[in-house]
């Protein structure tokens, strides 16, 4: 195999080799916290790839419904409802900076929770390239090193969650620490979703979702469509999936959704996750239609809770990790990733658990990740206050839950960044940009030599 990392002869082979190596090394790396994890192994000389500046801003509760409410989005509700693009009005050179600062001012109805000191926007540098196999996106931003995810903590009797995203009530009340993973995501459409080009991610953001005046468990359980989807909460959905797009309760039934999906009426959603995908060289692959779904196949991570026994499925292998569990004072001091095939072993209920023992809520499963859900590779490193993430997505994907990227194609893309132990509405987002694979667009992926 070609070992010259500086050349770019066959990136696919290198990526494959690198991900196998990463999985093999994960046990060691997880212990040592060495620099290998997340290293960009594509061999691309990014100095030769043009850089684009994105400004992502804090949207708070600016849902689809808020944007169409004349008493809220004053002077803009009817234009938004008829499908005008957001940037037909929000086009100032510093618009995102102004909007983010305004929403986080502590006086704006779009963010009722005080988040003192949180910046209203984040600059993200983005570069794009492609060869005859893949598209490569490289993101860089200054942000916090959020590689942790909430845990299960044994309290002497039961395993209860420990840590939560910053906007959660227990964190706001000081009863739990803020713990959540950093994420860098995009939603992408190939022109088949009405209005996505104009209004982007906001089409999927609705009242009833978590942290957006959430629907109650009872309401969801009583709803026929949600029952048909087998879902217990409301997540991102596209307007076409509802007979009334402003009401999550009006979901269309699976037959009808299947037709919309077959016609390409869904958006792809690719999320790089600092805890649940990065340690195993992946980024998850999902799509939004009636819900925020994962693609078919198996994801890079799985729940570490056994619903029947109410105990974790896996614990750390003490021989490889140094201990069976983590304690609260070890959070953020080392790489506490639980990885099958590397440092995870089946949970032993008789291992002498003490109050305060903690295990990750998710187990990473590099060897199990298969199918359309495992299409994307990613490498992310945090150094000196800056994340550098390289995402690799194959060209011409033919899965029914993917939007195929093709040379010459131009796509509408919205970006989102989760920073500082937060999720849901607490992310930073972009207005829609175009991504051209060797074609004219806001962000042009250049052909690699």
């Amino acid at each position, binding site marked *: 195999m070609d070992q010259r990392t500086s050349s770019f002869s066959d990136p696919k082979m290198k990526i494959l080799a690198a991900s196998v190596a990463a999985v093999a090394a994960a046990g060691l790396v997880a212990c040592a916290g060495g620099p290998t994890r997340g290293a960009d192994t594509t061999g691309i000389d990014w100095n030769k790839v043009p850089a684009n500046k994105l400004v992502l801003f804090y949207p708070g509760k600016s849902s689809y419904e808020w944007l169409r409410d004349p008493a809220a989005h*004053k*002077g*803009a509700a*009817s234009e938004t409802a008829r499908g005008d693009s957001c940037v*037909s*009005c929000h*086009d*100032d050179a510093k618009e995102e900076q102004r909007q983010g600062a305004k929403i986080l001012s502590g006086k704006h109805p779009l963010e009722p929770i005080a988040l003192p000191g949180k910046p209203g926007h984040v600059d993200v540098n983005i570069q794009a390239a492609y060869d005859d196999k893949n598209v490569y996106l490289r993101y860089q931003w200054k942000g916090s090193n959020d590689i942790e995810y909430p845990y299960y903590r044994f309290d002497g009797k039961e395993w209860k969650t420990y840590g939560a995203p910053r906007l959660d009530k227990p964190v706001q009340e000081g009863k739990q620490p803020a713990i959540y993973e950093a994420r860098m995501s995009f939603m992408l459409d190939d022109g088949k979703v009405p209005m996505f080009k104009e209004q982007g991610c906001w089409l999927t953001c609705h009242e009833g979702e978590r942290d957006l005046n959430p629907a109650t468990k009872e309401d969801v359980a009583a709803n026929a469509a949600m029952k048909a989807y087998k879902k217990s909460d409301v997540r991102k959905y596209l307007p076409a999936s509802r007979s009334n797009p402003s009401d999550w309760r009006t979901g269309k039934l699976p037959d009808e959704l299947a037709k919309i999906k077959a016609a390409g009426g869904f958006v792809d959603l690719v999320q790089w996750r600092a805890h649940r995908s990065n340690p195993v060289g992946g980024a998850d692959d999902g799509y939004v239609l009636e819900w925020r779904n994962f693609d078919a196949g198996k994801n890079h991570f799985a729940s570490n809770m056994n619903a029947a026994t109410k105990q974790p499925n896996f614990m750390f292998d003490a021989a490889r990790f140094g201990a069976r569990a983590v304690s609260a004072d070890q959070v953020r001091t080392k790489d506490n990733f639980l990885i099958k095939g590397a440092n995870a072993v089946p949970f032993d209920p008789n291992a002498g658990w003490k109050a305060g023992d903690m295990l990750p809520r998710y187990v990473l499963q590099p060897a199990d990740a298969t199918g359309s859900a495992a299409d994307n590779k990613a490498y992310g490193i945090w150094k000196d206050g800056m994340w550098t993430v390289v995402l690799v997505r194959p060209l011409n994907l033919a899965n029914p839950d993917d939007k195929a990227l093709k040379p010459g194609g131009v796509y509408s893309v919205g970006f989102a960044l989760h920073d500082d132990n937060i999720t849901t509405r607490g992310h930073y987002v972009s207005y829609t940009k175009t991504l051209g694979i060797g074609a004219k667009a806001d962000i042009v992926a250049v052909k690699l030599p």
Partner: protein
Amino acid sequence: MKRNLRPLVAIAALAGGLSLSVPAFAQQFDADAAENVFKDNDCHKCHHATKAKKGPALKKIAAKYKEKKLDEKEAIKHMTAGQKVKLDDGKEEDHKIIDTKDVKVQTNVARWMLSH
């Protein structure tokens, strides 16, 4: 901070043909301060310098005011009275009201708008 001293006399004289009855005073305004108030009030979301958005471009407003010999008092009325505005689709809607009652600030914004 940038201070603009822009004598409108010459333009007014041209617009008025031979008439030189326009008082010869210089319209002063602080462009940076005006632009900040304008943007803090979301005015820029509907009024671009040169491009028509939901509201007319500042250049167009300025040209109309010159032509009709309207002044900043008229402009201030539009930003303070919440008058009905007619939209392209025939619908009507109340115009945005600026969040300050300070006539000096309003005047500064109006002069800056009309300087386009």
